[in-house]
């Protein structure tokens, strides 16, 4: 991979070099490097506490890095605020239910459109087309939706704004199998729309089936990186244990 002056290789949308992150005195990420080309998907795997969510938070600017560089769409975004990174086209769907529980469904969607200057009504209609149940519950407080509906709302907030890259952090966590299918279908729609995806997942096999590239994080460091189809069962068992690799 060649790297130009802006730190991006040819066709690279997101490039991270030697990223390090601390929470106060405790270091959570050590020299993490990844490369996500345009319209590709990267699966980030690892056991609990490996630093997967921290990586997602650092990429979206929620937690500051203490070392390394992050380039997004040709720009050095290492010191950018989450707001500025979001406006540049990187959407982070955080772990848990990434919705505003005190706002209605419609207000949640309106919040996602605050960076959009025109076509807001069309975007809202698009969201309700993708997830009709949200249209039925548009005046209901998001905090009172079921877990699956909240994830739909979270996904709708990303799908309706056409970003360049989406980081999906444990979107299938705690969902029924049918709803997990909905999540993966939605992420597939994003890829079809040309959106790159960084997927943090507990269902390692499904994530590897979805992604082009994969990395395995262990105790804050990348311990394996390569093509997703090269990550065999034995490797996953060695790193993640039987349950996680399911």
């Amino acid at each position, binding site marked *: 991979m060649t790297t130009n002056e802006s730190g991006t290789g040819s066709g690279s949308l997101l490039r991270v*070099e030697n990223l390090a992150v601390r929470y106060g*005195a*405790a270091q959570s990420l050590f020299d993490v490097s990844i490369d996500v080309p345009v319209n590709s998907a990267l699966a980030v795997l690892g056991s609990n506490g490996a630093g997967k969510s921290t990586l997602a938070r650092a990429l979206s600017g929620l937690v500051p890095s203490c070392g390394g560089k992050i380039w997004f769409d040709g720009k050095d975004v290492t010191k950018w605020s989450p707001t500025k990174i*979001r406006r540049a086209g990187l959407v982070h769907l955080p772990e848990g239910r990434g919705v505003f529980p005190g706002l209605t469904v419609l207000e949640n969607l309106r919040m996602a459109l605050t960076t959009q200057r025109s076509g807001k009504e069309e975007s809202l209609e698009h969201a309700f087309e993708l997830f009709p149940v949200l249209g039925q519950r548009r005046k209901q407080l998001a905090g009172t939706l079921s877990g699956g509906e909240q994830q739909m709302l979270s996904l709708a907030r990303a799908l309706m704004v056409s970003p360049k890259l989406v980081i999906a952090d444990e979107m299938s966590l705690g969902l029924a199998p049918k709803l997990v299918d909905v999540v993966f279908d939605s992420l597939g729609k994003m890829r079809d729309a040309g959106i790159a995806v960084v997927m943090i997942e507990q269902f390692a096999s499904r994530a590897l089936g979805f992604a082009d590239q994969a990395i395995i994080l262990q105790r804050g460091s990348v311990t394996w990186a390569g093509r997703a189809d090269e990550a065999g069962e034995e490797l996953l068992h060695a790193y993640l244990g039987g349950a996680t690799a399911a």
Partner: protein
Amino acid sequence: MLSYVLAGLGLGSIYAIAAGSLVITYVASGIFNLAFAAMAYSVARFYYWLLVEEGWGIVPSALVSLFVFAPALGMFLYAVLFRHLRLRSTLVKLMATVGLSVALPPLVQLVLEQPTNTQAPGLAPRPLDVFKVFGSTINADQLATYIGLVVVLVVGVGLLRFTNVGLKVRALVDSEALTSLSGTSPGRVSLGVWAASATLAGLAGILLAPTQGLSVQSMTFLMSAAFAAVVAAKLRSLPLAVAVALVMGVTTNVLEKFIDPSSEFGAVIKPAIPFIFMLLFLLFYALRGQAGDLVAGGALDRAIATQGGDPSVVSAVTGGSNRRILNPSVLAGVVIVGIVFLMPGMLDKFWSGLLATGIAIAIALLSYTLVTGEGGMVWLSQITFAGGGAVLSAELVRNWGWEPLVAVLVAAVFIVPVGVILGLLTIRLGNLYVALVTLTFGSLITTLVFRRDPYYNFGSGQPMPRPEYSTTNDDFAYLALAVFVILAILIVNVRRSTAGLAMSAVRFSENGAKTLGISVVQTKVLVSGLATFTAAVGGGFIAMSNGSTLPDSFDPAGGLVWLAVLVTMGARSNIAALIAGVMFIMMPQVFQTYVDHDYADIPIILFGLGALGLALHPEGVVAQTGNNIMSLVRKITGRRGSDGETPVPPGTPGASGPVRSETDDPLLTPATRGEAATITAGGQA
């Protein structure tokens, strides 16, 4: 009757504006703004300056004050202070706003001077027009107040409910992190919220000034009364806060119809109404288990917050229970006590008298070291217990002829049950509620006891002689220092004892402590009792030092300054208490004597600014200076700490980084940057 209701609605409207503003800023920023009164005073003072001293008209004065000066003040305060506070502990948030409330009024007075006439005009032209409403009369000031509340409610609710700005504010209330991930800058939204809050504070101050006077005290009274409405609203329901505030205002005035306000009972009941409201709502919520700590932000906000920011936690980690005899903190303690011990011999009578009072206050400050530093409870009524100790010991000496020192100790024992009962009553409340209840309790006791005869006695209180063997300032300073040292050693031993460990456990996690079989009730009762005793002894010594109880010196507002000075120095350090007590008394006099009388308030401003500094350095000046000195010593001697690492607070996520050894599985070798690791699937396994 209607006239009483209308007048009550006027007062209630001002309460409602204040309560509404406190609720909005609390839910949007997680900060309960104890500096609201100071902000109200500052804007009202600026308005008075434009209107009266500069001769501007009412409209331009109001426009410039409320829509230029107030927002600018709010935005400035957000930029330098409030933005650092969102994820700090309740104690740090409260102390930073206390610091602001201490520093802001004297800063304003330094520039604009104290107004000569506190009866300031409001928003209505003078002479006041009078209107007939259903046979009753209201004046233009009252009408302005009603209009003020209606405008605030209509504009406020309209903005919050129906505009994009309001949507962003409500989103920020839910989660700052998610708001930023949505492309909205939380900083800009918060800036707007604080600008609006300062405007509302200013409006409340301007509306209040004609009836209650343009003074910090009247604004503080307004704030204390508004607390009750805010507590009734469980800190977050705007409609409930406004409704309770209005009811409280009406109740206060309607009572005057039935109870003569100049009578003994009337004088007692009127100021107690906000406390009664607060007590009733708190009991209701506590019984339903709804008065716990409110958590700012959502799960994501808490996940990205680093632990820290609580003086008691930080000090526990850095100070810890170091048992070495010659550890640096013990050495520093011996040196500081030694310096204070030498001071009486070097000072003249006047200064050694001040020193003695400073040491007496340091004794009272040790109670904060216990209750807040060790117990982790944010009590704002320690000065009231000190006052109780002073008043009761003076009564024992006056009525029973007891020896003063014995009277002080026995009085302190009698005050202990009050503290224990307060501790038991507040045991199920969250930290912020505890702070508000104890502050209001202090205000109530001050009004009902300290300001009543025979205890008040035109402000001079009752005489309180010193013991016969320490009548001179020097001797009394030595006696106070001896008592301080004894109590400090007692606190250190309690800290090191099993009971002290239980206190630490409860401070870090009540639920965790319960799982270890530690009784939270027993532990908190112990802390409450010890702290109350210490405060009361300190109060007795303050009275002995002054020769009289001087009830005004035990005002709860003064207690906030005490605590601000202490936490600035360090909430868990006994030596910090000694330094804080001595500085609190001597610094203003030093400025008054050697600088200029006009600058006597500078130390108070500095104390306030010091508490503001907590937002950035929660461990306090003493611990910070100690750490700096130790770093310097290590640098000079070329030594490092045992592990060379910064201490990690317990429970910090990911505290242990990867530990590699030669025996590690070769599979765990990090992949080289930017390329796929050359590991074949299943290679090792």
